[in-house]
């Protein structure tokens, strides 16, 4: 009888402890999962896609192609994080860059940081590469437009309930004359309810 009760005790303890162990599940990167209500990869991807789609569907691009006879060259500049969260804007910028490049409707120029690295490489080639393979300085493709913007939030709190309102503003500015040719805005609103009880 004693042995039996000890057996069930061990079984129960194993079951309880197994509930505390770490588990890993692979997920589809496109799957929408909201855990805390904070800005996440889904927001970043959705906003980048919708805003780039909007930017490329406006009149500025057709006007440019008509007058210049080529696709516009775009660069993504700084996107300021003015929100309540520590958002990695680099991930968001990477999403925008990907959407712009994959659209095939614009030329894309590397960011200032990446350009500097390439210039260093060209300077190195200038000294060390053969005449036939050397890439010359001064042949860079200059961008026509720069995309800049900011992420803002407004948070309304009442006890354990929060309304989180995200507003992403992007604008496309002509590098030649500082004209703004496109201004886009995307809003996301989330209602977050935290439990009043925990384990």
């Amino acid at each position, binding site marked *: 009888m004693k042995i039996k009760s000890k057996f069930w005790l061990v079984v129960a303890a194993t079951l309880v402890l197994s509930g505390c162990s770490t588990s890993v599940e692979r997920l589809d990167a496109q799957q929408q999962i909201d855990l805390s209500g904070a800005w996440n990869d889904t927001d970043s991807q959705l906003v980048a896609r919708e805003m780039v789609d909007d930017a490329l569907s406006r009149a500025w691009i057709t006007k440019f192609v008509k007058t210049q006879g080529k696709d516009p060259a775009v660069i993504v500049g700084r996107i300021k994080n003015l929100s309540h969260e520590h958002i990695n804007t680099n991930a968001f910028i990477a999403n925008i860059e990907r959407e712009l490049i994959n659209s095939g409707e614009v030329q894309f120029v590397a960011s200032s940081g990446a350009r500097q690295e390439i210039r260093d490489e060209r300077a190195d080639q200038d000294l060390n590469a053969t005449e036939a393979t050397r890439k010359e300085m001064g042949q860079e493709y200059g961008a026509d437009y720069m995309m800049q913007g900011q992420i803002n939030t407004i*948070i309304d709190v009442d006890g*354990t309930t929060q309304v989180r309102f995200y507003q992403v503003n992007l604008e496309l500015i002509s590098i030649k004359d500082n004209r703004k040719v496109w201004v886009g805005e995307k809003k996301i609103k989330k209602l977050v309810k935290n439990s*009043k009880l*925990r384990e």
Partner: protein
Amino acid sequence: MHKILIITLFVLLSTGCSLQQYHNNELADQLQQQKPEKILSTLQEKDPGDTDIAQYYLNLGYLQLLTGQFDPAIKSLTHAEKEMQSLAAISVTENVAAGTVNETFRKYSGYPTDRVMVHNMLALSYLFNNDIEGARVEMLQADVAMKKLVSGRQLNGQLASTHLLSAMIYELLDERSNAFISYQSAESILTQRKATLPEGLKLGLLRMSKKMGNDQQYAKYSQKFPSLVQRAKTNKQVFSLYFDGVVSNKVERTVMVPSHDHGQLIRISMPAYDKQDYRLQRLKMSDGQQQVRSDVIENIDSLAREDLDREYPSILLLTTTRAIAKYELVQRGHEQSSLVGTLLNIATVLSEIADLRSWNMLPATIQFSYLDTNADNVIVSSVNDIDHKISLSKGTQHVILTTSLTDKVFHYQQ
């Protein structure tokens, strides 16, 4: 009989975990005499108890900030902040344990002051790590935390130092409207507390109302602070924060009385603060032409006492309820046998411990001073009579952080 022995053993063993709080308090007391680096290394050698995680990381993060380890400070303070956030909900099991054994069975979820102050310390860590945008995020989060805590007309968790720090950060980012609102919020809290406004805050209100072209407000503040209006135009701004002393630790007040029939001992332990014996010391800052003294923007020692005052009725209620429950348990033990009753009585007396946990390494006061200058350097004189010469040659806006606990001076410039 076996069950009783197991309960007694469990209660006594778990009480051992509660003793950690006494070591933490000793360590905080040593901060007055020893360098933060030494206290930090002692703290790092300890493992945080499961119920003290937030307190451990709050102290750890603060010491890392004081020793100039900004990245680890951000990591530790963020950990503490997340832990406190997750503990905002009520735990039934912890409440049962707190109601039957003692309050230290409840996980430390931070007092209102801690929940806001953690953002101040995070913002400073980001700022001196040259990430002003990170500091701005923390100030916005502090604002949300304060909105969550505000109740009626009470100043529960409302910190003037947080608004002042927000105003400084907004001013550095040239967000004039936000800076002015934050200076006004700091003024409002200090006025409600009937505290003296620091001269640096008055200057901030004058400067921002003028910069924004808000003539009505500028006229109002000019009338209110006439001696500060006539100032020559300068090209550099120096914001100086000074952390003075260490906040008081809680102490245990215990009463032990025999029951009416002398059948058992009843122990009641409550947390309290000793009489305030903090001696305010100020920081001097001079550019050779003018000298300013730091003024208190936040008296954390008083805030900690207010936080306990606010919680006192519920602690008292729980302590007396627990005393009744323990009395009943020992009575039932005595009904079985006098040995069982005695064992249970020993366990209930030994397990009765007051919860003395708090963010006990914070400064006693946060002080602020401000200087408009054309000089290339300023001299900051701390209480240890050590003069620090700070170069202002790079940039036009400077934030300096000094503390009475270390000779280190942190300097942000842009």
